[in-house]
């Protein structure tokens, strides 16, 4: 037990002064002095991550631009805050490995590995134990756009470990889907990920961004099944026309979070008129010209009939990291 004025004044004063009313007066004064001392001590220690508490660590982390992992122990996070700009950290910010270090520490053992891949197919990887790797020239044709002048684009990949709790939701109609109701804590595309997790990843590219200057993080790809299909040039949109039917363009075993809002902004393609479209349950539908409903029920059960006074030029779509409500 640390020595405090409350305990020591009994040894420094005569008995008549630390008993009875004297004890009450001196005890009160000692308590006040102890409070001032504790405040000064904690204020001093707040700037030392290894000595301070969670609330100060959070503020230090915000200040130093270092995210705390989802399940990261206090001591581990404190050590990373101390090393915030040496030997790696912000000193190497702008490199793929510096970004992967932040991503890997956030997700911890939930990952098999994290990776970045740019438009040229240059891949950098990092496993949870910090092992780094790279290889160049992977066939990666996201949307068919040529590398020049669209060279400054890259993607982030999370290869999810089995047992991490991050997995695909069930089928449409499954009562367990989104825990049975729309709520702000579930994300649309996968279990075990909250909107806060998604926001944490997006924040890596804002302000003191963990990316090279002049580049743009496009999508975060969540690899749920370990497969490694290559994009075929149609993944810039969620869908494509296949023989007259609109079908998903991206691999169904992966999930996609928009890291830049503009990548999920859609205006419609006037050159495409699908006869049928795939619906949520996997069936197809082509519309019924004999039916013109005046209103429709939205997912939150509200009724909407459209507004003829507005004709939006484009719309932001949801992504797999969007909250369900």
């Amino acid at each position: 037990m640390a020595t405090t004025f409350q305990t020591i004044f009994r040894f420094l004063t005569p008995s008549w002064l630390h008993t009875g009313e004297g004890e009450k007066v001196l005890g009160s004064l000692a308590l006040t002095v102890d409070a001032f001392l504790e405040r000064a001590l904690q204020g001093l220690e707040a700037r030392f991550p290894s000595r301070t508490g969670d609330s100060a660590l959070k503020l230090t982390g915000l200040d130093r631009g270092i995210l705390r992992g989802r399940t990261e122990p206090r001591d581990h996070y404190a050590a990373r805050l101390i090393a915030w700009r040496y030997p790696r950290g912000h000193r190497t910010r702008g490199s793929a490995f510096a970004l992967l270090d932040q991503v890997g520490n956030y997700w911890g053992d939930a990952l098999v590995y994290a990776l970045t891949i740019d438009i040229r197919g240059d891949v950098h990887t990092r496993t949870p134990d910090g092992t780094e790797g790279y290889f160049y020239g992977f066939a990666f044709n996201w949307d068919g756009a040529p590398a020049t002048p669209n060279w400054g684009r890259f993607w982030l990949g999370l290869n999810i470990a089995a047992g991490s709790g991050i997995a695909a939701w069930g089928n449409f109609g499954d009562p367990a889907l989104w825990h049975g109701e729309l709520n702000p804590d579930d994300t649309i595309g996968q279990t075990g990920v909250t909107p806060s997790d998604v926001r944490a990843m997006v924040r890596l590219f804002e302000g003191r961004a963990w990316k090279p200057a002049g580049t743009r993080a496009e999508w975060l790809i969540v690899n749920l099944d370990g497969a490694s299909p290559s994009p075929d040039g149609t993944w810039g949109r969620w869908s494509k026309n296949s023989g007259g039917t609109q079908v998903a363009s991206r691999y169904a075993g992966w999930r996609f979070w928009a890291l830049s809002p503009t990548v999920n902004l859609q205006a419609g393609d006037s050159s495409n008129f699908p006869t049928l479209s795939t619906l949520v349950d996997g069936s197809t539908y082509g519309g019924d010209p004999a039916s013109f409903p005046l209103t429709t029920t939205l997912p939150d059960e509200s009724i909407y009939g459209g507004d003829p006074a507005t004709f939006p030029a484009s719309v932001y779509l949801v992504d797999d990291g969007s909250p369900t409500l």
Partner: protein
Amino acid sequence: VTVSASSFNVPFEALLDRTAWLHDRMAKLVPGAGATLGAVTVVHVVPPQHIYQNGFGVINGPFAAQQSSTTPGSNVIVALPRPPSGKILEIQALVKGASGHGALPATKPKCELYRQDYLMTGSGTLVATATDSSATVGAYEAGHVIDLFAINHTLVGQDFYYLILTGESGANSQTGLLLSGFAVYWGDV
């Protein structure tokens, strides 16, 4: 099929595409429409089928009018067919000065748009006006427009609209000003 954002975005993108497809076709079916997504603009060329003329003659049947007198105030009045609702965004009088001007006429042609209530309870109300802005004889004697720009007038009830083109006059004026019609830009918003 496990549910993901793709489950919702595939049919939604299909709807977006079909909407864009419809908009694109509509723009192509209506000449001049759809210059801006969200605001439909229709251009309607109105021949100068005049309801009144003073100092103007008709050439090429009803499809053109030509100034035949330089008396000040020589004009031609043309009724403007109108849609049931919407806006008049802009009107361009399509004109061409006669060749042989030594200099620009002292009073250059002028175009005016008037509105007349359908009960004829009063004289027409001036909505917009513009004078020929040609700066050189060369520009004036070439085909050009007198532009009533940014009118943005919302059509009123069942009122009638008409245009008055007043010809050139004064020093250096001469007959032969050709009015071949009006390009009228309608908008829905």
